[in-house]
């Protein structure tokens, strides 16, 4: 069996042997939505046993490509070939039967069903009666191979994102997946979980699966991928072996221009302390947190997911108030028990979960931007002044370069980067003195990321105090003036910009001696 041979030799060279048929090939694919050309003459090949990374800016066509591959959209032109044979993918079921599966940033699971059912519910071939014990045993076995050890009987809701992702991978494995598409799989994972995910991906690759790995994190791309393809504006721009290409060249191909330095730099001079936190604590979340925040300073909060950084932010913003410790704003002690109080004190918090918590997706861009500061736009009769709202929204649209068809467009239709900017506009509109940003560049493209960094720099220079929570270590190091590191609810270090290195910060975050 070919599979057995493959395991014994290098998968990449075997797959690139002349005459080997790619497991999935797209030829001349075109897809248009009205006037928008999402994909133009795209050809791409995925080979057995390779990790193929796909990078590209927002609007480059990656989502559309995935949808064509999984049968959600039929292509307008071109063909899809599986094992060299043209196929017609008209539904998710078609794709599933051909062994094509996709895992998205936010895992699609059934919260009320057990873990085991989540894995096996879609199987068409198992008869009308559910065999519970067998199913649970199988589920436990697959998950164990993925280094995930949980009871398969528990409901899937409330499980950490990394575990839900593993469930989706297990689902794919159980369906004998041949092409696994992973769309931004590391966006919500801690560094530790990313390592485990990479082990799982390598396992899949060695078993002969073609993995299409879409990510904005170029460091990860270089770590996991065998080949890298770049998309730009609906076109397939290039495909190179991982060792044949460099990061700057990739970025250049993605944006079509040389981007020498996409992290903003700024100098910070000592200024008045605006926020003083002493011994802040909340049972089960964090304890003994103390720091000062100066006007015009960017304080980075680093640490693994779960270290308590968001909890500190939620405490400062009144969503989950601290139980012990003191908070002083401008020298005066304050109690922050609700977000309204936090806003009145000039503290704003940009949530890491923009789709569920940060934005009202069905509402317009304007409505989202003015929501927390609505009382400014309300006349004495209680009626909202629409014109004033719109002009405020327009101002932010220009300032932050929010790309939208119109200000009355539902925010849910915008791309991730523009949603993020809308959320930012909303909080900037509350004119905060302290702005807490939680993962502001997660899951957005390089161009929007650079925009956000530039905005942070400008805000800091104009005197705003900024707390930046980010799991992207290079970002934290480049943008912050000081870095505070958390580990399992405790503060393990504060580094000045000059002395902070990736190693030092990671050591403090992980606690390895």
């Amino acid at each position, binding site marked *: 069996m070919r599979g057995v041979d493959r395991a014994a030799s290098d998968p990449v060279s075997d797959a690139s042997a002349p005459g080997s048929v790619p497991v999935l090939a797209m030829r001349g694919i075109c897809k248009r939505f009205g006037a928008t050309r999402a994909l133009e003459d795209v050809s791409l090949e995925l080979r057995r046993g390779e990790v193929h990374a796909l990078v590209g800016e927002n609007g480059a066509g990656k*989502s559309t490509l995935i949808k064509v591959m999984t049968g959600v959209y039929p292509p307008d032109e071109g063909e899809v070939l599986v094992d060299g044979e043209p196929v017609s993918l008209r*539904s998710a079921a078609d794709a599933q039967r051909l062994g094509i599966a996709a895992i998205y940033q936010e895992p699609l699971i059934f919260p009320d069903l057990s873990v085991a059912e989540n894995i096996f519910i879609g199987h068409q071939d198992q008869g009308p009666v559910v065999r519970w014990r067998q199913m649970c045993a199988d589920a436990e076995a697959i998950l164990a191979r993925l280094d995930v050890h949980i009871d398969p009987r528990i409901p899937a809701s409330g499980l950490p994102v990394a575990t839900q992702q593993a469930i989706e991978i297990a689902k794919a494995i159980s369906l004998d997946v041949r092409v696994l598409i992973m769309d931004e799989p590391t966006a919500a994972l801690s560094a530790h979980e990313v390592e485990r995910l990479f082990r799982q991906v390598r396992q899949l690759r060695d078993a002969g699966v073609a993995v299409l790995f879409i990510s904005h994190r170029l460091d990860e791309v270089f770590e996991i991928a065998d080949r890298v393809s770049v998309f730009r504006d609906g076109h397939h721009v290039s495909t190179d072996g991982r060792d044949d290409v460099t990061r700057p060249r990739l970025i250049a191909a993605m944006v079509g221009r040389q981007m020498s330095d996409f992290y903003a730099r700024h100098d910070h001079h000592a200024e008045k302390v605006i926020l003083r936190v002493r011994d802040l604590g909340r049972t089960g979340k964090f304890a003994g947190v103390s720091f000062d925040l100066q006007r015009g300073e960017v304080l980075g909060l680093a640490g693994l997911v779960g270290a308590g950084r968001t909890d500190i932010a939620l405490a400062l913003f009144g969503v989950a108030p601290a139980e012990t410790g003191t908070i002083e704003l401008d020298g005066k002690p304050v109690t922050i028990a609700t977000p309204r109080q936090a806003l009145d004190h000039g503290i704003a918090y940009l949530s890491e979960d923009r789709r569920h918590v940060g934005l009202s997706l069905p509402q317009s861009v304007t409505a989202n931007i003015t929501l927390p500061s609505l009382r400014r736009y309300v006349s004495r009769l209680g009626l909202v002044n629409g014109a004033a709202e719109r002009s405020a929204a327009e101002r932010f649209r220009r300032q932050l370069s929010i790309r939208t068809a119109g200000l009355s467009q539902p925010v849910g239709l915008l791309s991730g980067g523009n949603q993020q900017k809308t959320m930012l506009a909303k909080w900037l509109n509350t004119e905060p003195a302290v702005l807490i940003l939680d993962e502001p560049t997660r899951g957005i493209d390089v161009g929007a990321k650079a925009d956000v960094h530039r905005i942070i720099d400008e805000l800091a220079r104009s005197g705003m105090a900024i707390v930046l929570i980010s799991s992207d270590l290079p970002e934290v190091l480049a943008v912050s003036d000081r870095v505070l590191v958390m580990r399992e609810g405790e503060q393990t270090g504060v580094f000045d910009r000059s002395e902070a290195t990736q190693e030092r910060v990671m050591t403090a975050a992980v606690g390895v001696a």
Partner: protein
Amino acid sequence: MTTADVAGLRGTRSRPGRTAVWIRPERVKELSLLGVIFVALLVFSFLVDDYFSGRFFNRVTTSVAITAVLAVAQTLVIVTRNIDLSVGSIVGVTAYLTGQFASSNPSASPAVAIAIAVGLGALLGAINGVIVAYGRVPAIITTLGTLAIYRSWLISHGEGKTITADSLPSWVVDLPTRTAFSIGGLDIRVVFAVVVVIVVVFQVAMQRLRWGRRLYAIGSNPEAAAQAGLPTRRLVLGAFIACGALSGFAGFLFLSRFGNITVVAGQGLELDSVAAAVVGGVSVLGGSGTLVGAFLGAVLIDVLDQSLVRVPQVSEFWRNAILGALILAAVIADVVIGRRFRRRWSAEARPHTKVGDGSTDTPTEAPVLTGATPRGESGDA
């Protein structure tokens, strides 16, 4: 192309080692309902003289039968994140038409009459199902419409005439009093026994048949269900047909219990069925809840209702208010307890490699959020 490689990733099958004592979440709810019923019976036994009597038992089991069947029917639909507000009208139509058939064909076998009721109900349910599943009209709107349409049709068809008990063959009218067997002085009526069997059969179907589990999946996350390749439209249609068929059977029970069927028969039963399901722990958001729970919910409501009648201090007016308050309390208690359990499971479920309490993870809790957010063009392309 071999799939043996990937199959190798499936790991070795072994008997799983269970650590903690495992009680399925649904079981907890059902047991707590039983507990509440028990407590209610206890409390009322102090307030009412001669509370525990055979007559009381019969009264409860007779009146609960119809609601229980409708609770089962409603649950099948609610679990898919839909609702059927037309069940009351379906009961009315099937009761009336079956009554007409039975009175004009007194020698027809009972099986035929029941088949007509069930078949008619299934047809009416299918109309609902087609509009909801294939027409993509929200269930609440569709069934509000059919509630009115079926009722209006019945009124115009009936032309104000009432089906009277005398015109019905005796087997229909005598059915409610027929006893299947007795346990220590308590008579178990045939009707009640049949209803219990129906509840058990459907409960087993929902827990053990792939069809049933898929109904839960659709309600739990419709988007994931579509992506998993489930035939969602067909499944939803099936749920509505089953609901209609059961409602038709309930219509037959209605006919046999009351005998005199007017054109407004069954009005309001849809609310009773939803109340019973909700008290029984069925989430209106879909994806969870059991038929046994819905049955116990119907029993609890009926026990409370019948008991309050017998407490002399409580006036008719207060009876409804108290009943409503008790239903509300049952639902609130369910939410609070459910939340506690969920938190405990998620804490235990965290893999040992996790750092910290995990509270900063992207929240994935409430089903309404997972299924309701738009995908499509909102992702990064």
